Each structure stands twice: as structure tokens, then as C-alpha cells.
């Protein structure tokens, strides 16, 4: 079960370092009593990028963000946000960052507007500047119509949106978002993902945590996969999926033929690397390129008088990467 994972050397990693660094993390570690929540975590985020921390429950994502937000003091290591040290220049770090906490952190007995006004003041905004920003944010998160009622009466999606809005008030250079789409409907989720991309297009650096690989894949320039407090691998999506090899996985069910017979014929084809026979008599093939090989598979089947009754193609994904590196699924825990 427990695998010793050495961080694979990902090709092209160094070549990615073009722009200035917004977040530099070196050897960060944090223990809670006996739990090593974060161990020796290092990574960098360039300005203007979206980087995701992907990992299952308890991987240490929130603990890492908390240290980067100067909320928790690291037991080891240090990090620099826009070149300010989280250990010695916390005030400057806090002014540079916006934090969207994993749990909704709003005053539920105050209205959306009152919340924004208060949090704006905490970021040092006053007067007309504050009023203007509050209106802009209400517009941005689509709550202009609902600015007056108490937040307690909001739907989950509305609260999530306001929770994000609060972090944007002071136009932070770096935005931390801790699982901002958990527990909401698909439409609100779409909404949030789109606004993250929009913010990023406008130049904001985003550090995003999630345990949905689809989100990490869609949003991020780079992905850092964490598990049990450690970074197990990091790179672009393409770089990461290469770890499991450039193979597609095809699941097929066939009828009117002895499966073993067709398996042998398929294996003999060019571009088919492995054929395995499953207990339910379906077949799983590992192939270099499913698009090229599929016509040949059908041709062989027709020649044998067999019928292919179902085809399921899986391109390599982060789930597979995680499985490959840890022996567990992303959502096991």
C-alpha cells in the first residue's frame, strides 16, 4: 500500500521559468502533535499563472495555504510572496494576498454589503474608494440585487461567491483559493471557474487547491500533486500524464467469439502494447494512439465474425497519475 515515491524528474520543468516568481516555497513543514501535516514542501509560482494544489482529503493543502497566508507559523522552511518572507514580513505579505478560505468565513447576520464594507476596511480601504470597490465586487459576484439582506439567508452558491468577493476587495496581486467550488451546484461552479480565469487574464496570480482533477486540469498552468503532507509530483498537465506513459486505455466488450482468440489477434497488431482479459470477459488494451488503432480492431473483429458491443476510451489523466504514484485513487479517502 505505502509506496516510497521519489519525485520524478519532469522534462521541461526548468524551461518553464520565464517570468518573475510570485510565490517561492522552500522546504515548508508543519506538525500538529504527531501528525506531520506538511513535510518539506517546495514549489514556485510565476506571476500571472494559475497553479493548483491537487490532493485528497488531509493531503496538507489547507495547512500549506495557511502558512503562506501567515495564519500558521511553519515549523521549518520559509516562503516568499512577491519577495516578502512569510516569517519576517507578514504585514507586507498580507497586503499582497487575498485569501478565499475553504470554509465560508462571513458575518451571517450582516448583509453582503456590510460584510464587504467591513472587510474592505480591514484591507485599509476607506471613503469613496471603499464604496466604489464594494459596488464593483457586488457586481462581479452577481449580488448587487441581494446586497441588503442578511447573508444567513443566502444559498450556498451565493455565500461561496461572496466569500470569494471579500478576498478581491483590495485587488491583491496573489489570490489563494482553497477548494472554492466545494458543495455547490454545477452552474455556480462554472461561474466561479470562469471568473478565476478572468481574474487571471487580468494579471492575478492564483494558487488554487482542489481535489477535483478536472478543475486542476482546466484552470492551471501547472499542477502540484500533494499526498500525506508531501509534494509527490509537479508540472504541467501534459508533463504529468506522461508519467503514466503515452498510452490510451481502451475497454471493449465483444460477442460471438472466444475472447481469448480475439485477444491474441489484437495483441499482434502494431501499436497495441498490452491486452488483458477481464473477469467479465471484457478486454482492456493499452495502446499508443486509440484513434489510429480503433479501425484495425474493428477489422480484426469482423474477420473473426465477432461483434464489438461497447468501446470505452480513457485518455491518461491525473487520476491515473495519482494512482500510478500512490497506488490509491484521488477520492479514496
Amino acid at each position, binding site marked *: 500500500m505505502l509506496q516510497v515515491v521519489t519525485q520524478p524528474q519532469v522534462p521541461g520543468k526548468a524551461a518553464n521559468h520565464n517570468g518573475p516568481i510570485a510565490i517561492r516555497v522552500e522546504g515548508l513543514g508543519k506538525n500538529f502533535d504527531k501528525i506531520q501535516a506538511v513535510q518539506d514542501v517546495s514549489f514556485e509560482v510565476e506571476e500571472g499563472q494559475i497553479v493548483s494544489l491537487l490532493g485528497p482529503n488531509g493531503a496538507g493543502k489547507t495547512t500549506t495555504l495557511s502558512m503562506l*497566508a*501567515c*495564519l500558521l507559523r511553519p515549523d521549518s522552511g520559509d516562503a516568499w510572496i512577491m519577495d516578502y518572507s512569510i516569517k519576517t514580513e507578514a*504585514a507586507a505579505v*498580507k*497586503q499582497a*494576498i487575498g*485569501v478565499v*478560505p475553504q*470554509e*465560508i*468565513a*462571513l*458575518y*451571517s*447576520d*450582516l448583509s453582503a454589503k*456590510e460584510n464587504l464594507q*467591513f*472587510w474592505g*476596511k*480591514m*484591507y*485599509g480601504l476607506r471613503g469613496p474608494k471603499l464604496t466604489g470597490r464594494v459596488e464593483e465586487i457586488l457586481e462581479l459576484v452577481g449580488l448587487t440585487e441581494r446586497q441588503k439582506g442578511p447573508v444567513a439567508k443566502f444559498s450556498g452558491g451565493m455565500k461561496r461567491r461572496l466569500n470569494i468577493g*471579500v478576498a478581491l476587495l483590495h485587488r491583491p496581486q496573489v489570490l489563494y483559493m482553497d477548494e472554492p467550488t466545494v458543495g455547490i451546484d454545477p452552474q455556480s461552479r462554472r461561474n466561479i471557474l470562469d471568473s478565476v480565469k478572468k481574474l487571471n487574464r487580468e494579471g492575478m496570480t492564483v494558487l488554487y487547491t482542489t481535489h477535483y482533477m478536472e478543475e486542476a486540469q482546466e484552470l492551471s498552468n501547472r499542477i502540484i500533486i500533494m499526498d500525506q503532507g508531501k509534494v509527490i509530483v509537479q508540472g504541467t498537465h501534459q508533463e504529468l500524464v506522461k508519467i503514466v506513459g503515452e498510452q490510451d486505455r481502451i475497454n471493449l466488450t465483444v460477442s460471438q467469439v472466444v475472447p481469448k482468440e480475439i485477444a491474441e489477434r489484437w495483441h499482434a497488431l502494431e501499436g497495441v502494447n498490452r491486452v488483458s482479459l477481464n473477469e467479465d470477459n471484457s478486454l482492456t488494451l493499452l495502446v499508443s494512439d486509440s484513434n489510429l488503432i480503433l479501425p484495425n480492431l474493428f477489422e480484426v473483429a469482423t474477420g473473426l465474425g465477432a461483434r464489438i458491443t461497447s468501446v470505452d476510451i480513457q485518455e491518461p489523466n491525473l487520476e491515473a497519475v495519482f494512482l500510478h504514484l500512490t497506488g490509491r485513487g484521488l477520492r479514496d479517502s
Partner: protein
Amino acid sequence: MKILDIAFKDMLRSFRSGFAIIMMFGLPLLITGLFYLAFGGIINGDNDQLAPTKVQVVNLDQTQGVAAGNSLVTFLQSQELTKLIAVTVSPDEASARQAVDSQQAGVAVIIPANFSNTIMDSATGAATAVTLYQDPTLRLGPQIVRELIGHFLDHYNGSRIAGGVLAAQAGKYGVTLDNTASQVAGLEYSQWAQTQGAQPNQLLDLQAPASQSANDKPLTSLIGSVMAGMMLFFVFYTGADTAETIVKEEEEGTLARLFTTPTSRPLILAGKFVSVVITLLIQVVTLVVASALLFGINWGAPLPVGFMTVGTVVLAAGFGLLLISFVKTTRQSGPVIGGALAITGMLGGLMTTGFNNIPSFFATINLLTPQGWVLKGWTSTLGGGGVGDIIGPWLVSIVLGLALFGVATLIFRRRFA
């Protein structure tokens, strides 16, 4: 001023909560109001809180000379009772009852023909039936009349015993007193007793010490004491309840979020402390002014009252913050606040203000609690004390309050380091 932004945000939240408003202002005024209604109306005759009950008296007692019937009529008509009852002597029973039926009078008192005989008959000791005929819609007036007559009759029981003793004494010396003679002796004892100061209006001493002394001080002082106790109980409650927002915000996640903004932790805590202090200040000032207007309480001279206001706020805030610094979750805070404040409040004497028959050692126990010290100060201002009278309790409140503040700050700073 972020510190005030934080304080005002907290106050906006608590003043928006109906529950908090009731605990801050509603309950102390309501409880004192109930005391006021229960005691105020009867005693506060000067303010015409209650019109004297109209009483029709019919004296059918036929006995000549020193008759008990006449004594009762005279007693009811006495000057001391005019604030309570307005007596009209009626010629016959029917017209007296008629007066009650037509609500011209609240009570008819019918003294029967054999009243003197029965009342003084030491041999039988039979109960004398004075008939009270009353308007069923009235409570207080008939109750007063019943009490007065009851007292009068008790008094005659004393006379009857005196008569009996006299007869026995006379017997020792071979003198036989006939029934009439012993009655006369008894009645004369009764009248002698009245002139000696054992007047029936001693009843008023029991029921209403207020009317005995000048300008009704005791009533307002009773209500003032009750109000002081209630005010302090709920001010200490509010202190802890407002301080509880620290724990509440920790659970809501807003405290952690505050810590991620460019606002220092000591400043955030200070903002919370300021909100507690301002809230309590508003509460004390409102309660003092409102109770003065509603119940006519004279809290005392402005300077000592101002001193005690500040002392109360500092001590209640410090005590509340200290209590909350021991609490980890809002689930714990209910029992902790409730229990600690009920016990210290009770020991501090907040629930027993205005009671006369409290053992004196209790005053010493009071001072083992923070509440006891501020109560002592307020009791002084209520009694017309000057700055010199309250300076002791005031200094204790300030010093103790600041000390508790300090300890709470240390605990919180360690917790949120």
C-alpha cells in the same frame, strides 16, 4: 481606525440581535418593573398611585359605653389610614350593601349587634363574625380592609387575654368579677394599650415602613436596590456575552480570516475589548436613565454615579473577557457564563438587594465576588453617598477589572499567538 471598525461591527451585530437587546435592557427593566408594580402602588400613596378604597361601615353593635364596635369604627376612621381607605358610616346594612352593588364603595364592613360581647367573651373565645361584603372585581382594596380588621381583632384577642388574667388575679384575692366587669377591664386595657403606642396602625409599620418616614424614601430605595441588582446581573451577563464573540468568530472562521488581513492580532483583540466596553457603557447609562424616568429612582449625585458607571463597565468587561478566555467553544460558553454569573451574582448579593433580613455575614461574602463590590458602590450612591463613600468600592472595581483584563489579554494572546 480599524480598532473602532472592529468594535462597531461587533456592536452592529449585537444590537441587531433581539435576544441581546432583551438581555441588555428588557429583562432588568421588566423585573424591576414587576417589583415596582407589586409594591409601588400600595405604598406610594403620595403619588396617587392608588386611590383610597371606599369603605361603607355599618355599626350594629348595641353595647353601651366602651363598645368594641365603636372602637373599630374609630380605628378605621383614624387619620393614619386615610391614604388607604375612605370610610363612610352607613345607617343600615342594606344601604351599605347597596353601595357596594352599585360600585359606590369597594367594601362594606358590617359589625354585628353582639360584636362587643362575642369579642370579649373570654370563656367562649368564639370567632367574631365581622361581615365583609366586597366588590368581586377588586383585589387590593378589600385585601387591605381585611388585613386592617384582622389586625384589630388580633389586638382584641390580647385584650381578652388581659381580661381573663385580670379575672383570675381577682379570684385569688376572693373577688369575683362578673362578665361585664371583665369586659370593661379588657376594653380599658385595650384603650390603654393604644395610648401606650401599641396602636393598630403598627400594622402599617409591618406592611409599609415607607409611610412612616418622610418623603417616601424607602420605596424608591427598595426599587432602586432591586434595579441596581438587576442592572449589575445583566451588565455582567452582557460583558461575558459580548466577549463571547471572540469564540464565536473563531468558530465562524472570521477570526482566522481577520488574521489574514493586514491587521495585527493585538489590534483585533483590542477592537473586541473596545466593543465590550462601549456596549456595557451604553447599557449602564441606558438602564440608569430609563429606570430613573420609569420608576423615579434617584441614583445619587452625578459624580459618584459617573464613577460607579465607569467602575462597573471596567469590572464587568474584565470579568466577562476572563470568563470567555477559558472557554474553547460556544457550546461550552452557555453553561460557563450562565453558571459562573449566576453563582457569583447570587453570592455578590445581586438577587437579594432590598431584603432587610439578610444575615450580616452575607455582606462579607458579597465582597468575595466582583459583583459585590460594584453593588456596594451603587448602594452608596443610591443612599445619597458622595465620592468619598464610593471611592473604596470604586478603586477595587477599577483595579480588579484592569487585572482581569490583563489576565484575559495574556490568555488570549497565548491562544492566538
